[in-house]
């Protein structure tokens, strides 16, 4: 009985940590897809860029963890604003296939560029003393870093919910997701809104990629290898939603951890089967707009 309980706690803990990383990376994708209808397959590249920027700032420039993390996010946000202006903007409301081709092109470029600069080996991250090691809670030990990850996730989720529900910016985003043309008609500057949301989404992805480097290793094939996971979270959660991806990330995170623990030989198979079943039951995802 005690074994079962301890297994359940362990699965919930590690599942939650993975869920937080997946959520941070995917929530921006969900909002931009819901807002602009843009199939951005290259979203994972921003997460990977966050990871590379963090490790490089720490190892090359000897910056402390916190400073490097903020620096990484700023770098990725600036890069994403540039890309939005130069590339993405041209294809808003356009051909789905063009969007797929362009974002796949971006993925391929990141694979080549990352291999060129960092080589094929995974980049390790070294969190500071304060958040490494173990935490003793009752009779159990929990890795501090993952507890920190969960805490960060919880804070950010709360912050995001408040931002979307309580601020003027959030109201504009919700209006534009619900009805883009009406939002434009009442005078919302949607072009600016797109750019801001895109940058925010990329920044969150960079944070998720950087913090989650020990769960989703930073390798050149990152954007392509994890694409299925991000897309599952977005489509199961429902486009344009903040809550949806959270529930979906939680489902995927715990299911993935549980199956690795209980039946590793079945691997990711059940996650895919679950995704298929949910999407057949609710084609627009759990929290998607009807």
């Amino acid at each position, binding site marked *: 009985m005690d074994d079962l309980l301890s297994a359940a706690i362990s699965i919930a803990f590690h599942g939650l940590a993975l869920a937080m990383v997946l959520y941070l990376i995917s929530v921006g994708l969900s909002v931009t897809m819901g807002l602009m209808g843009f199939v951005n397959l290259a979203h994972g590249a921003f997460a990977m860029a966050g990871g590379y920027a963090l490790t490089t700032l720490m190892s090359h420039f000897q910056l402390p963890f916190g400073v490097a993390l903020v620096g990484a996010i700023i770098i990725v946000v600036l890069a994403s604003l540039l890309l939005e202006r130069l590339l993405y903007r041209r294809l808003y409301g356009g051909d789905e*296939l063009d969007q797929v*081709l362009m974002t796949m*092109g971006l993925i391929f470029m990141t694979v080549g560029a990352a291999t060129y600069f960092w080589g094929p080996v995974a980049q390790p991250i070294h969190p500071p003393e304060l958040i490494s090691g173990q935490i003793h809670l009752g009779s159990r030990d929990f890795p501090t870093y993952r507890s920190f990850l969960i805490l960060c996730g919880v804070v950010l989720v709360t912050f995001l919910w408040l931002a979307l529900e309580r601020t003027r910016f959030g109201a504009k985003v919700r209006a534009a997701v619900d009805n883009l043309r009406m939002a434009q008609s009442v005078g919302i500057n949607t072009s600016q809104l797109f750019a801001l949301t895109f940058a925010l989404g990329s920044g969150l992805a960079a944070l998720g990629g950087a913090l989650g480097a020990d769960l989703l290793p930073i390798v050149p094939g990152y954007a392509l290898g994890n694409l299925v996971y991000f897309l599952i979270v977005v489509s199961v959660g429902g486009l344009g939603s903040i809550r949806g991806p959270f529930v979906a990330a939680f489902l995927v995170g715990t299911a993935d951890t549980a199956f690795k623990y209980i039946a590793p030989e079945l691997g990711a198979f059940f996650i895919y089967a679950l995704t298929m079943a949910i999407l057949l039951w609710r084609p627009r995802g759990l929290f998607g707009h009807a």
Partner: protein
Amino acid sequence: MASAPDIASDTMLDAFAHRHRLRPFEALPWLIAIAAFFVFPDYLALGAQILATILFALSLDLVLGYAGIVTLGHAAFFGTGAYTAGILAANGWGEPISGLIAAGAAAGAVGFATGAIILRTTGLTLLMQTLVVAAMLSELANKATRITGGADGLQGMDVWPIFGAFRFDLFGRTAYLYCAAVLLIGWLVVRSIVYSPFGRSLTGIRENVLRMHAVGAPVRRRKLIAYTISAALAGVSGALIAQTAQFVGLGALGLERSGTLLIMLIIGGVGQLYGAFIGVTIYMIAQDRFSTIDPVYWYFWIGLFMIFMVIFARGGVLGLIERVRQQIRKPSWNKPSWNKPSWNKPS
């Protein structure tokens, strides 16, 4: 008074009759294929790969370009075909033609079974479903190590000579001609499908699904039939590559294969039958050249090239040719252009 509509219907009938007649330029790919056999005897192995991949791209064009089903999981059928042919050949039945047929049947069956479930969805949901189907099959192949060889790939294939007479030689001569012959048959099948009334109704579904429902066309059934045929052709293509390479790896089912296939087709031009020929040839020759120089950075350059394509050359190579032709000739509106997909419609 009745003469005006008569003339109109005559020209219409004429246009319909002319539309599916074989035109001289359609012989061009085959002339090039035959010429390449004699001019580049050292590159026949690559040539066979290109020909088999063209068949794969044609099968994708049937669902994507004509029926408008955007899929990121077409490798599911390619891999099913490859593994079917591979497992047969590794377990004592190396007869290639029956292997191809079995591969086509197996992939078609998978296409039918999954299509019956997932084709009720559209858009991103459908894209996800196709992706997930391929991922599930890949996971199955990865775990069923005893049958498929798992991550190491399927080894020990023994493919017999074609018709018991033509052995697969080291230079890939037999493989090249074998792939060319199968591609010819596949091309004839796809060509006659897209010009048939069934093919026209697929185009109708792509262009305006609500109207097709309104005129009473059995939309779901037609999509499913197209999906099944396409899956079977993709399976045959996979079997061709398995038999000529005598090896099947997990990559046959991977997302990368579905993705690059989509890219090759878009480079050539979607929904125009010959986009597959052009796109695959350009991509695979470029990949072969570049990756001998620099295998890793190939990805960077192809990615850059794709982004440039999207910005400067929409509609692929065929779209580019079409635009150049329109610049030269004045546009004539009595020339029907039903074949070209119009993706950019407001939803």
